């Protein structure tokens, strides 16, 4: 009964395999920093429940586009759960893929920005400087994952009073005409990193969690420091099931997916 073979690859030879491949991401001359933030997304756990999507909206003050502009493709979901159909009833399958900015090590969105509004931080994040962005929208054209979102309208207007009270004071409400995207909840990273620095230590594994990872009760998403070989995320990406989206493009994302199914 091969299909009842329930031992997971990890247990079998996953770790070894991962070690062989070297779990951490591609060489990166951001250098210096002891951190290299990364994420793993275990598709075998994901149920497509969408909690992460709303969590990101809540944490990062994402605008509410309204029915018409949502339909016209102007809604903003830094995190979205993509659904892929295959086949026809009854031979049909569907797959969920939670997709957010992959924080590519060779981020195609960065070199094309004429004003350095989007750039790479020493900690391996794809940073976004809103007040520097002039809205050429080039970066989204060059983003193979389509996870960059443009502020088409004065989004703040769609928080009618007193709805604006829900806004997270740690995160800017972006103004019209600038690009935005998943930041790996950088405000949370800064908050903790600052405390750690003040206490003269490094951030410990698990100390930082992104809003999406935190909301996911299925524990699909693991966030952490890829430079720390003992971090949860480093262990996760050592899995034999790991792959990265559109890997062929050589963008070297730091978001690793773990393949679903009996593998």
């Amino acid at each position, binding site marked *: 009964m091969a*299909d009842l073979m329930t031992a997971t690859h990890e*247990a079998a030879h996953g770790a070894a395999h991962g070690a062989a491949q070297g779990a951490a991401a591609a060489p990166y001359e951001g250098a210096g920093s002891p951190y290299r933030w990364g994420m793993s997304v275990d598709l075998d756990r994901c149920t497509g429940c969408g909690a992460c999507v709303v969590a990101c909206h809540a944490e990062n003050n994402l605008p509410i586009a309204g*029915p*018409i*502009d949502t339909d016209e493709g102007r809604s903003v*979901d830094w995190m979205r759960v993509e659904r892929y159909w295959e086949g026809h009833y009854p031979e049909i399958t569907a797959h969920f893929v939670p997709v957010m900015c992959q924080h590519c090590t060779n981020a195609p969105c960065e070199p094309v920005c004429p004003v350095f509004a989007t750039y790479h931080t020493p900690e391996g994040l794809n940073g976004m400087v809103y007040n520097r962005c002039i809205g050429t929208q080039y970066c989204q054209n060059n983003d193979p994952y389509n996870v960059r979102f443009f502020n088409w309208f004065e989004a703040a*207007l769609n928080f009618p009073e007193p709805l*604006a009270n829900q806004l997270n004071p740690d995160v800017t409400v972006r103004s019209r005409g600038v690009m935005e995207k998943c930041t790996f909840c950088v405000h949370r990273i800064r908050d903790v990193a600052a405390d750690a620095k003040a206490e003269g230590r490094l951030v410990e594994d698990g100390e930082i969690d992104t809003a999406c990872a935190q909301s996911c009760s299925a524990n699909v998403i693991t966030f952490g420091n890829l430079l720390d070989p003992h971090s949860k995320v480093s262990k996760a990406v050592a899995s034999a099931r790991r792959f990265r989206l*559109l890997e062929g493009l050589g963008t070297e994302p730091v978001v690793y997916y773990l393949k679903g199914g009996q593998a």
Partner: protein
Amino acid sequence: MERREFLKLSGLAGTAMVLGGCEDYSSQLIAYVERPIALEPGEGNHFATTCDLCSAGCGVSVRVVEGRSVKVEGLEGHPLSHGGLCALGQAGVQHQYHPDRFRGPDLRAKAGEVSPDHLKLKMLFDDVFKAKKRPTTVPENFKVGLTSFAAPDFALADEKAAEARKFGAELWAQASDRLGKALAAAGAGAVMVLGPQVRGHRYQLFAKAAKAFGAPAPVIVEPFGHEALRAANKAVYGRPEMPHVDLANTQLAMCFGDEPFTTGPAPTLFNWGFGEMRRGRELVRGLFVVVSTRMGEAAAVADLWIPVRPGTHGVIAQLALHALGKGGVTVAEAHEKTGAPVERLEKFVRWVAGTELKVAFGGGEVLGHTNAVETLSLVNGVNVAAGMVGRKGGILPAAPAPIAGMAPPEPIGYKDLLALVDRMKAGQVKALVVAGVDLFMALPGDAGLEDALKAVPEVVSFATVPDDTAALATMVLPDSTFLERWGDATPAVGSGSSVATLMQPLVVPFFETRAAEDVLLAAAKAAGKDLGFASADAFFKAMWAGVANDNQVPGAQSAWKKALRNGGIHKPALGAPLAARMPANALPAPRFEGEEKDFPFVLQPVKSMKYREGQGAHLPWLQEMADPMSAAAWGGWLEVNPHTMEKLGLAQYDEVIVKSLHGEVKVGVVPYPGLPEDVVGMPLNFSRRNGTRYDSVEGGSTWEATMKKDPGRGEDARALLGAKAEQAGGGLAWGSFRVSITPTGAKSKRLVLVSKSIQPQESPAVPARVEQEFKVWPIS
């Protein structure tokens, strides 16, 4: 409190309690009683409480910044949320700051007519917002002494807010008078109808009030609820309540029609269990089998999906029984009856026979069929046959709450609800008190609820935001949200722990709202009846006295503080053993209303995680998020198999009229490969005739940012359902209606799709993409 200590706490505000498996988690939370008042502006603190948006009762941790609740997060280590949260729970803060939330009581001269006083109160609060401020004063009855941080620049707001508060207090005084009189006058003719979230001691207080006024005990109504499941549980396990389905420790989970991760009785809990079952253990990866007609979220993540004709799920349960050598049906028969592919059935049999630990559970679409009770009994029977009742990795008895008197009574059945509606029509109900539920969300379109409500002289609604029941009420006494009041609950489903969750007021009531408890107490007082408590505050503290009393225990933490820190008290425990009666092997064929020739399609009403039973409909976040399967947002859609669309010459976005014997709705078409060709799907409870700006059928409010008119969400699938109680035990068979589809020739203006591409029909290149780029499906 020490500044250093405080800084430590607020530092953790950012981290938001994510320390996986940290030893004393509670130490990171601030007990509300020792709440540091002088917070640094901008710094947040986390307070534990309970999510009140569905009856699962997840423990949550709410980030409060400068007196605003800005984020609801899962409570680490809580037996229901396990540190996570569902999409609806995330939207709790929008419940709190909803722009259309009632600002205060509305004492109407006539049903449905907004009173001038209410409008005045609204204006007063709007002035506060015009000054770009938020109310920072405290309602006069608000005993617990929270003060938010009145920075100088709030002075203006305070003036205006104080004025609004003052006026609101006057209205409340009138309100309790009027409520008291009404209930006294109605006496036994008064009926209290409560939603499933009115539980724990909150229910007890309603009961006390009813008793004091000589009214019958309040009844609980569960819209499109689980009564068939309860009946089945009673039949097989001997108890109606929902046991603990031990997903985390099982090897093979069989899910019959349920959508446990999105719309089930406890999405967060099942989501956690699923994750653990799949990848939580070193050597075992649990297998997940789903039996359903429509491929929903659960089927999408299944290792084995068994597609069956509507209402034939029970046959597969019988097949499982067969595989376990307990009668049942053979693969051939099962294939014959359900139309499921033989090789999958054989695989299923292999898996059932070949695994040691297995568990079967049902719900979702099964609940809507005429044979729901029999089907679910058979499903439960599988656990009995497999000897998994009371066994780890199987079905475990739910433990009672550690505090007495918290479990609410079983919700009334749909039949009783219809009976109540008839009594209202007959004028036998003198006063109707509705709290925690929008009755319209619980009844099909032609149940005649509107006339019934009109026949009741005094209809009192405790709604926080406009809904269809409140629209026909004579009195709206807006309840405070779960972030603004005390409350407690014991979860509706078993979780392997004995749980009493606690709700604490974390922020000042934003408007002139009152906790229902306070309103009832005041009303009783006004009518000269004493319920024995001065305020909701006093009431809950008394109810928790057993825990609260040991405040003076030497050492830092009293049990009470700990309870507040942990959002209640919970410890691993199981209830008294369940019975394990083998159900009869009988499975009546499902009945469908309407002739096949006039109504060629079976309507599969879909509970979307966006809307649940209606709790999500008025929240913009949930309206705007894409439905995981159809990728539709903002209102309703009609799911049709692409081949059927070809036959009917339909295209995406085409507007069609869906017609049943009971009504018709206009809706836009979405290609849905996960449905058989003779079944169409449509979501439930996404719109209200008189809802908020976000969930109104007609809409019309203009979006400020773009000045675009809102087309509205459109008519709900409820309009297509008949009111007859068709299930054994009198449940509503909401999945038993046939419909016809006629294109209007127009494109739907209301349909909103976040993703417009339906692979693979659209482009042959896509499977290649999915395969190469998104290596995500089972290799077997």
